[in-house]
């Protein structure tokens, strides 16, 4: 979190034009995407692309040699630039040697990365962006707000003013007239330019070919009309063959804009040529006579060396991760403060630009995994963000307050209990009669800005369940209950319901008292030591009575127990083995109930409608999607689906603490979708989600109730406290 970032987030959230345009654009992309993918098997296609990118990056040294050889044979000049400065220097020198005064540029992320335009400007060379959206953003002196719609944050009036100023003619706000004026103005720039610059979406080694994709046609003109053409290309863009390239665009445009194919795909192999004039084959026939390809490293080879971050090079820059990101949907791209946006942006920024900036970008991540699920090359962005935070914490150390909290409190369960108990006394003046906290004193009040908070329980779940500390010796299934902190300190009653419902269903539930915080807060902040220590505490506590199952009510904790403990213990094989056994026993509440009572008949309809919110870590983390619905239906409830049931509620990551205003905006969409179903009860199998949804609905004075499945089922099983 940084003050500058908080400011930018606030600005974006309060920019009405941006908000309206963004909602419309993302809705449109989602809609056309469905059409574009109709009849295609996304899974097998994305596996294919993943394989292509894995092979390309693995064989990169050979592919680079082949590309250089073929491109040079075709007459292009290939230059390998070590870093941004080197690349800029090459282009600048070339421009000066050719006495270039004016350049047209087609969209290039790498161009932005190395700040090519700015450097050329400084040397007195004019540069015009030729994508209309980019041009508008350039005229405004800003950064693009969105990959597909760089200028979506601008109103028609603002665009009219910018284009009027650029063309020196007073233009009205008729979109068609503005487009005509823009086309005419840009058309002239291609004719006047001495040099054209573009990026490349793909570079093909077998023929030394560059592939440039545009929808507007600007790419064709910028690469053809000026006499010198320069392409700046990241090494990771190189693939082996035309077939590989074809497989990539089959997904690229569908992901980017919901189109089956971009309008223009240019394959360029060397400079134009002709043998029409007797005497010789000449270059520069109706197109550039010189083609320069600048292959840029700038941190990419280092990324390739890293086992943890290599997969960021598989990114095909389609923007899907942004289009599905709840944070991006709230604030768009300008808040990130650098070229690469969203989750993948944090990783790319760290390697290609500046680690401090990357930290800022990463701080916006909810960890909701929507990007991972939708990525056409299956990049595990959330995992890399966690690793990035860990290595930053290692390098720079955590802020003292966090370190103190993680190492001195979180790590020692009795101390945490004590702190919470003190908190439960201190909170008293602010707790309303219904046990909600709606305002807090001083700076703490930001915590209650987006949601009302539940009061801390007077005594934690651990104390309530003292009698359940060990299972009796019966032949019933033994179920250890891992509660997590939210159940323990905020909703102990829900923990009670879990135990009772399980007992009613014939299991033998018990509460291992040695359990502690799962360690996720420390782990995701980068404090691996604390996380590992807590992992060992929990592994030991949860294996003690050899349970058949371990039931959880917080999918975030479950994911930690199930996946991250394995990652944390890789260096210690014996702990790793114990973590593996633990992982196999973890179940979500609904999942377990169905497993324990597979033959229970469907109950008659209760004439009660409920809707179900999918917690990120349950659906995308462990693939539990149908089970909670099945269980509700079996118990006689009618499940009404809300729109985007699996979109994050806004509680994830540290966003709820660091950027409450942002969390509120994400929550708003969720609550709107819940209210649109018209139901009176929303069910979710995640207690942090319960906290967030209850708190948000309370702020709205809504009557809609939020319950964990266990709580609802307790009522149907006639269980009381």
């Amino acid at each position, binding site marked *: 979190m940084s003050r500058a970032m908080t400011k930018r987030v606030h600005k974006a959230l309060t920019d009405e034009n941006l908000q309206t345009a963004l909602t419309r654009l993302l809705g449109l992309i989602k809609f056309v995407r469905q059409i574009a993918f109709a009849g295609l098997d996304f899974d097998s296609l994305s596996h294919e692309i993943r394989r292509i990118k894995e092979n390309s990056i693995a064989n990169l040294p050979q592919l680079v040699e082949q590309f250089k050889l073929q491109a040079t044979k075709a007459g292009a000049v290939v230059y390998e630039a070590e870093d941004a400065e080197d690349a800029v220097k090459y282009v600048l020198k070339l421009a000066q040697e050719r006495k270039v005064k004016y350049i047209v540029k087609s969209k290039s992320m790498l161009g932005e990365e190395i700040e090519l335009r700015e450097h050329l400007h400084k040397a007195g060379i004019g540069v015009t962006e030729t994508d209309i959206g980019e041009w508008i953003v350039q005229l405004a002196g800003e950064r693009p707000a969105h990959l597909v719609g760089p200028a979506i944050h601008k109103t028609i009036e603002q665009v009219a003013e910018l284009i009027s100023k650029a063309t020196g003619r007073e233009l009205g706000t008729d979109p068609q007239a503005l487009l005509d004026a823009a086309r005419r103005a840009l058309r002239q720039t291609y004719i006047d330019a001495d040099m054209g610059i573009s990026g490349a979406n793909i570079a093909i080694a077998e023929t030394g070919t560059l592939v440039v994709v545009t929808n507007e046609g600007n790419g064709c003109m910028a690469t053809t009309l000026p006499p010198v053409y320069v392409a700046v290309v990241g090494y990771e863009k190189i693939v082996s063959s035309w077939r590989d390239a074809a497989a990539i665009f089959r997904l690229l445009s569908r992901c980017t804009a919901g189109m089956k194919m971009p309008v223009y795909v*240019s394959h360029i*192999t060397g400079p134009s040529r002709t043998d029409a004039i007797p005497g010789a084959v000449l270059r520069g026939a109706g197109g550039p006579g010189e083609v320069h390809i600048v292959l840029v490293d700038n941190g990419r080879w280092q990324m390739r060396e890293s086992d943890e971050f290599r997969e960021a090079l598989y990114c095909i820059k389609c923007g899907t991760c942004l289009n599905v990101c709840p944070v991006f949907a709230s604030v768009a791209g300008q808040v990130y403060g650098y070229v690469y946006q969203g989750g993948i942006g944090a990783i790319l920024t760290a390697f290609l630009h500046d680690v401090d900036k990357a930290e800022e970008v990463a701080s916006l991540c909810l960890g909701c995994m929507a990007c991972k699920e939708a990525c056409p090359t299956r990049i595990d962005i959330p995992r890399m963000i966690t690793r990035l935070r860990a290595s930053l914490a290692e390098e720079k150390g955590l802020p003292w307050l966090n370190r103190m909290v993680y190492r001195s409190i979180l790590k020692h369960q009795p101390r945490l209990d004590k702190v919470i108990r003190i908190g439960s006394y201190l909170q008293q003046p602010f707790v309303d009669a219904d046990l909600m906290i709606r305002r807090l004193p001083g700076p703490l009040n930001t915590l209650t800005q987006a949601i009302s908070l539940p009061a801390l329980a007077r005594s934690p779940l651990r104390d309530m369940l003292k009698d359940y500390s060990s299972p009796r010796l019966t032949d019933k299934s033994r179920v250890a209950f891992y509660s997590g902190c939210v159940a323990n300190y905020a909703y102990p009653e829900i923990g009670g319901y879990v135990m009772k419902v399980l007992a009613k269903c014939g299991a033998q539930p018990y509460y291992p008292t040695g359990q502690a915080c799962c360690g996720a807060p420390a782990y995701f902040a980068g404090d691996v030591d604390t996380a590992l220590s807590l992992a060992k505490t929990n592994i030991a506590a949860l294996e003690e009575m050899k349970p058949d199952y371990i039931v959880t009510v917080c999918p975030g904790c479950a994911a930690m127990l199930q996946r991250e403990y394995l990652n944390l213990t890789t260096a210690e094989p014996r702990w790793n083995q114990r973590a593996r056994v633990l992982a196999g026993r973890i179940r979500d509440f609904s999942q377990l109930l169905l497993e324990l009572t597979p033959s229970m008949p469907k109950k008659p309809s209760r004439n009660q409608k409920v809707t179900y919110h999918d917690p990120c870590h349950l659906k995308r983390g462990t693939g539990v999607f149908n089970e909670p619905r099945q269980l509700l239906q079996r118990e006689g409830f009618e499940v009404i689906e809300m729109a985007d049931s699996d979109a994050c509620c806004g509680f994830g990551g540290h966003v709820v603490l660091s950027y409450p205003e942002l969390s509120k905006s994400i929550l708003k969409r969720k609550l709107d979708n819940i209210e649109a179903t018209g139901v009176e009860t929303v069910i979710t199998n995640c207690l942090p989600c319960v906290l967030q949804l209850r708190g948000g609905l309370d702020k709205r004075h809504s009557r809609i109730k939020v319950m964990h499945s266990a709580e609802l089922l307790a009522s149907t099983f006639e269980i009381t406290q």
Partner: protein
Amino acid sequence: MCAQVAGLVEQFEAEASRAGAVVYEASSAEDACNYILKLAQERDVKTAVKSKSRVADEVKVKKHLEKAGIEVKETDLKEWIGQLAGEKLTGRETMWQVEKLISKATGKKLDPDPRVLLNAANGAIKQYCIDADMGISEADVAIAETGTLVIVGNEGVTRLVAVLPRIHVTIVNCQNVVPIMEDVIAALKSLRGNIAGQVMPVYVTYITGRNTTADIPGAVLARSQGPAEEHIILMKAAKRGSA
């Protein structure tokens, strides 16, 4: 036309139309010419530029348009020089003959230096493309999967003809429609006309439908920076395919 080709053509038509192109199946050379002429007249076309196209030459598009008073400029350098000479080039022309033709066309006395001649020709031909109302191309390959045209050439003007004029017409031989994108490379390898030593033609341009933009707030508008209309003429009757 065999059933397999017919299926591909049908798929190509559906996809290209969906992407915003206007597709016309021409039953004969005359039919194709009439379609282009009618289109040109309806859209008030005064000048057209043409890429090298065997199919267009076979069906005599240029003659047809010229007869109706529409000026048609060849943009392929060899074809253009031929047009200046008033006859197909034999390949045995000397530089001096070419120098005379280009000097006359550009109204400047040029040195008989290949570079000078090429620069002058480039200037003239690019200007034709900038001024023209209609561009006429041939696609050597078309992709059924996506309704995509594949236009191939070594000269940059093959692309300028396709993007600069406000109307773009592409002639495709039905036999050259391939099922999917992965088939393009094999089709390209079998094309003739590469200059010695070349592995791949310099420009292979895929065009799918009509260009649009959503960059001006308010609506998705047709015609971004390329042509306002994309017309595709599928030559049904043509017997000879290049692939």
